[in-house]
């Protein structure tokens, strides 16, 4: 616990130093690939700070190799937590047999998240083991770790190159998960150089072969500052399954607070 705190303090002081540094030299990045990768990640996070809270509905369209489709619909409430991972409450509307099932998660920059599942038929809240981050979320091609909030501390970085992409010009950055229970050896991200949006991510499995590719089809700007991927596609190259993720009706700063994320609100979620 103590070492974890010290680690946090060290990371926090490093990160504030880096923020200062990037302010001084604005667009100028380090020539060291690891340093430059970290600077880009910091920019991504910094660019998105202060969104507060959000609510949205989410539709997942799951397709198997034979083209058979099934859908999932859920509503998400999210709260930005400064200095740690975000809090989220997901409520399922579809399919009908899981309607009312709700999922509360406190994600952490380092270590396992805290996750509780509410089963409406039994009115039972279960704390679930969450160290495993690579498991699929509701049978989709998104794993739990793909859906948890982006925190700089979750990876080490390496800047690879700059190249044209859907968002104009992109930094191509390699990310290596710090958590040994991550399902990946590395991720390769395409981040545009002007707005620092993540347009594409390649996920490499534990054997370092290409497992999945996430591509963003559409970004929407909210509050004149915050870009959200509102249509994304995950393709699993090994199983040939895909999952489309569509976000609808994003609302920001809806007045959610810490008090909206606990076992009582989880049980009340309808």
């Amino acid at each position, binding site marked *: 616990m103590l070492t974890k705190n010290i680690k946090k303090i060290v990371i926090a002081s490093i990160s504030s130093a880096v923020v200062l540094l990037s302010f001084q030299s604005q667009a100028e990045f380090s020539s060291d690939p690891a340093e430059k990768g970290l600077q880009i990640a910091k920019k991504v996070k910094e660019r998105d700070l202060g969104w507060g809270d959000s609510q949205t509905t989410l539709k997942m369209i*799951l397709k*198997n190799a034979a083209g058979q489709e*099934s*859908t999932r619909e859920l509503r998400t409430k999210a709260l930005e937590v400064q200095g740690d991972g975000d809090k989220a409450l997901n409520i399922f509307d*579809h*399919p*009908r*047999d*899981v*309607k*009312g099932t709700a999922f509360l998660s406190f994600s952490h920059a380092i270590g*396992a998240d*805290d996750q509780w599942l509410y089963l409406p038929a*039994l*009115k*039972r*809240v*279960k*704390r*679930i*083991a*969450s*160290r*495993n981050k*690579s*498991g*699929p979320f*509701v*049978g*989709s091609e998104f794993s739990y770790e793909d859906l948890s909030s982006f925190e700089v501390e979750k990876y080490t970085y390496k800047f690879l190159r700059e190249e044209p992409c859907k968002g104009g010009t992109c930094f191509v950055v390699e990310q290596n998960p710090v958590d040994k229970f991550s*399902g990946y050896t590395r991720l390769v991200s395409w981040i545009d150089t002007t707005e620092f949006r993540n347009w594409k991510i390649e996920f490499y499995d534990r054997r370092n072969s290409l497992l999945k590719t996430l591509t963003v089809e559409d970004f929407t700007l909210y509050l004149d500052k915050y870009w959200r991927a509102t249509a994304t596609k995950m393709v699993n190259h090994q199983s040939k399954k895909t999952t489309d993720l569509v976000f609808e009706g994003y609302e920001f700063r809806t007045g959610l607070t810490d*008090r909206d994320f*606990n*076992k*009582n609100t989880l049980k*009340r979620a*309808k």
Partner: protein
Amino acid sequence: MMTALPKKILCRPYFYRHSILLALGTLFAFSYSLAASAVEVSGSTQFEITAYARDGQFEGQDYRTNLSVALAPEFFWDWNNGDSSLVFTPFYRIDENDEERSHGDIRELDFTYVFDSWELHVGVRKVFWGVTEFNQLVDVINQTDSVESFDGEEKLGQPLISLSRVTDWGIFDAFILAGFRERTFAGEDGRLRGELIVDDSNARFEDDREENAIDLALRWSHSVGVFDVGVYWFRGTDREPIFEPSLSNGSLQLTPFYEEIDQIGADVQATIGNWLWKFEGLYQKSNLEEYSATQLGFEYTFFGIASSSADIGVLLEYGWDERGTDSNAIFQNDIFVGARLTLNDSFDSALLVGGSYDADSSTRSFLIEASRRINDRWTVAIEGLLFQGSDSSDPLTALNDDDRIQLTLERFF
């Protein structure tokens, strides 16, 4: 549907004084909510077929298949920006053979009002407490609807007023349980019962107010780091009856006697890596006896077995009751093992295999449960139960001829 159901329910003896008051209150909320927002209707219909390996041991049990249909719609209104809501969940089952299992209930008729970190409930509710999988030792608010399922997980709606507050030091709950619900028991033609039929029309109560008794409960629960902890105090009528032999129309029956009790209990789960460590314990005192009981164990999950996305959870639990074999405690010295396979596929396919072993009487039971979604509307579940009793003093021995397979198709709307 709505007009047909309550009529039957009203005939039941449990529709007593406090419930009528609570019903009036919720009815007021109901009429207000009707004006305020549109109703959301959901729920399910269950179709169940059961096949038994043999005729039962007792008279009335000479059949090997049973059909049953259950309907559980849910009506939901919310208004006031979601801070006020009303949920109404009637339930009705028709059973081919067991007339006691053909029954109705109001599972929920719950008006909820939320203000700041407070939450008020008035009406009929279901409240779950506990962490273990094989026994619901500390789940004491609701009465068990024992004709519904063998595992005792199905509960009857409890009329109550409850207040809950979320603080930085945990969640505090206070319950006024306005009225007592009697446990349901299989009838003469029902399977999975003891030799003697329970005569639930002549139940006796220590409290003169009988079903109108008001019970109290307080609970504190909190999540700190890897721990989820709950502690409670309960004063009122024991949900678990004591059975007294009695003669009714010349035949020997069992009459339930419901004691007044004071109970304190706790449940703790530690979630550490792949481990879930679980503990439930209680201490109970009545005019007749005092005792402690516990259920504890763990669940360990192997994630992503054989580089697939499937998980296997291994469960081990132990149940102990101070009263031992001289009482009607079923899990007095019992070991439970289980394995749960979750495919994590788009059909939510899951398989649970479990067994219990009574270390005093050597009685064993086995359970297998498989479930899967068929499509957006339907799910299917198959449950198998096997009993091997070898000691007539163990209540499970009465179920020796009740080995069965049950197929349940459920349609959601």
